């Protein structure tokens, strides 16, 4: 059994699916963020795998690095926001964040 790029892609597609499911069903914002991390990781795997198995350069590699950096930044900000929201609303549920709605 030769592990070609397809296997990686299928794995990442599965992760993406799981992430999406989580994103749709979770109500806690932190949990949603966790789902997003799953999706991002799936993308990262694709970057690395494509770069390793289909290419010779290092672009995918570098962009995986960037992606990790960006997701770190995003997480930091998102968590700051959520803590702030929590301070105001005493909970973290997306469907109750409707102060600015309509």
């Amino acid at each position, binding site marked *: 059994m030769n*592990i070609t790029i397809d296997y990686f892609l299928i794995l990442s597609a599965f992760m993406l699916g799981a992430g*999406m499911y989580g994103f749709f069903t979770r109500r806690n914002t932190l949990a949603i963020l966790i789902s997003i991390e799953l999706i991002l990781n799936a993308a990262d795997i694709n970057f690395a795998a494509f770069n390793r198995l289909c290419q010779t350069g290092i672009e995918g590699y570098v962009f995986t690095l960037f992606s990790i950096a960006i997701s770190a930044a995003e997480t930091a900000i998102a968590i700051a926001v959520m803590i702030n929201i929590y301070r105001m609303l005493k909970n973290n549920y997306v469907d109750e964040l409707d102060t600015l709605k309509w």
Partner: protein
Amino acid sequence: MNSESIVFIVLAVLIALFSVLSVTTKRIIRAATYLLFVLFGTAGLYFLMGYTFLGAVQIMVYAGGIVVLYIFAIMLTGKTGDAKQHSLSLAKKGAALVAALVGAGLLMFVIISHQFVSKSLSAEVTNEAAAPIGEIGSSLLSAGEGGNLLPFEAVSVLLLACIIGGLIIARKR
């Protein structure tokens, strides 16, 4: 069936399993923990591809940094768990599940039906020092052909902004 394949399968099963657990568990602290396992698995995949530095970064930044951040955040926001999760109607959940499955399925179908030209995972791939750190470093800081200075700087500015933004947002008034 070489050893790399076996390792890949183990890792893949691990990742898949914990991904699912991470999005289905009711307690959020567990979800964070399962995410940690997924991240480790991903790092394993990088090692398997010979991207040792990347794997190390993955473990340091993700497992070491982000997940810790999550756990702190979870603890700070007090009420753990997603207690009201069940109040989400079954229909909505089903719709989400179907959509996710169909989406992922469609993606897989596309992937399978497309003939990728690729190497296969082998010892040679695993052991070859595919991307030397020096090369990566000079690529990040060079502005010429194949250089990534601009995105690098952009990311650094972004990180700076995040630091400031995080401080401002999280500051007590």
